[in-house]
């Protein structure tokens, strides 16, 4: 009986290791891309310069992220207060509430997509690109994709900001 329990525990542990290793292998595979030999050589020779440039980009992006985050927060507070004002005056504006809710979700998505992108950059900076240029470039490719996602989120936030303004102007015209 005891042997059975011990063997079950061992099988369970083995399964956990297999799953964990599999996930790690999948992540590694995602980061690795097939690139030309010329490119590999370029990455090897310019490894330090490239990582320095990447570091500068990361710093610049952090400034944009912080400034945007602050302005979005301030804007959300202003919008939320104005919605409360409508409610206090018993003016039913469901479209404004909906746009605000969508805007909050979009801002949250912007933040999480930036975190994903920044993780890619951090991973690329950790790789020894002289030894493993393919993995380094894999992270760069992934970072480009994730950066494009942030760009889309920023665009959707811009659209919602414009939509909210248009709704307010429409109401203003009825006064």
């Amino acid at each position, binding site marked *: 009986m005891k042997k059975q329990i011990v063997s079950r525990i061992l099988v369970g542990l083995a399964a956990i290791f297999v799953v964990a290793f599999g996930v790690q292998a999948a992540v590694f595979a995602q980061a690795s891309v097939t*690139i*030309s030999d010329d*490119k590999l050589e370029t990455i090897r020779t310019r490894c330090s310069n490239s990582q320095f440039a990447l570091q500068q*980009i990361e710093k610049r992006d*952090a400034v944009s992220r912080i400034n945007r985050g602050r302005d979005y927060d301030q804007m959300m*507070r202003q919008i939320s207060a104005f919605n409360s004002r409508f409610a206090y005056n018993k003016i039913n504006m469901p479209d404004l509430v909906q746009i605000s809710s969508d805007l909050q979700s979009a801002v949250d998505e912007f933040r999480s997509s930036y975190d994903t992108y920044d993780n890619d950059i951090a991973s690329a900076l950790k790789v020894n690109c002289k030894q493993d240029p393919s993995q380094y470039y894999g992270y760069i490719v992934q970072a480009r994709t994730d950066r494009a996602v942030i760009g889309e989120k920023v665009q959707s936030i811009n659209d919602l900001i414009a939509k909210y*303004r248009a709704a307010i102007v429409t109401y203003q015209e009825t006064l």
Partner: protein
Amino acid sequence: MSFTLPFTRVKHRTYRIIHGPKLPLALGGAIVVSLVLMGVSVAWYTLDGSSKLDLSRPGYEQERAEVRTSETQKSYDTTGAINESAISDFLTEYDTRTKELKGYGDFSDSTLDDNDIQLNVQSGDSSATQ
């Protein structure tokens, strides 16, 4: 006998610590608690992403200057009337904020191009098969 002796010694020592002077115990406890709290705060700082946006770290002097200085938290009236003037005030601030946002990077550029990260192949095949 040889197994019980160390245990008895530990028991006596523990008894002496508990019933002895309280200052060393209090100091030790304070150090342990502060270490645990420090560990929790560092883990929190790292895991919630604050560390990535912390420009007070060394090497970020130039970026610190570029970050918009945090203005005092503005409070908004939630119980005033909705009239022409209130909407105008709202739109004025809203437009100022929108204009500010246009001045920041919008992540839609091609910043991570091979040229920007010094990986442009001057000759030969530069295309990467992905």
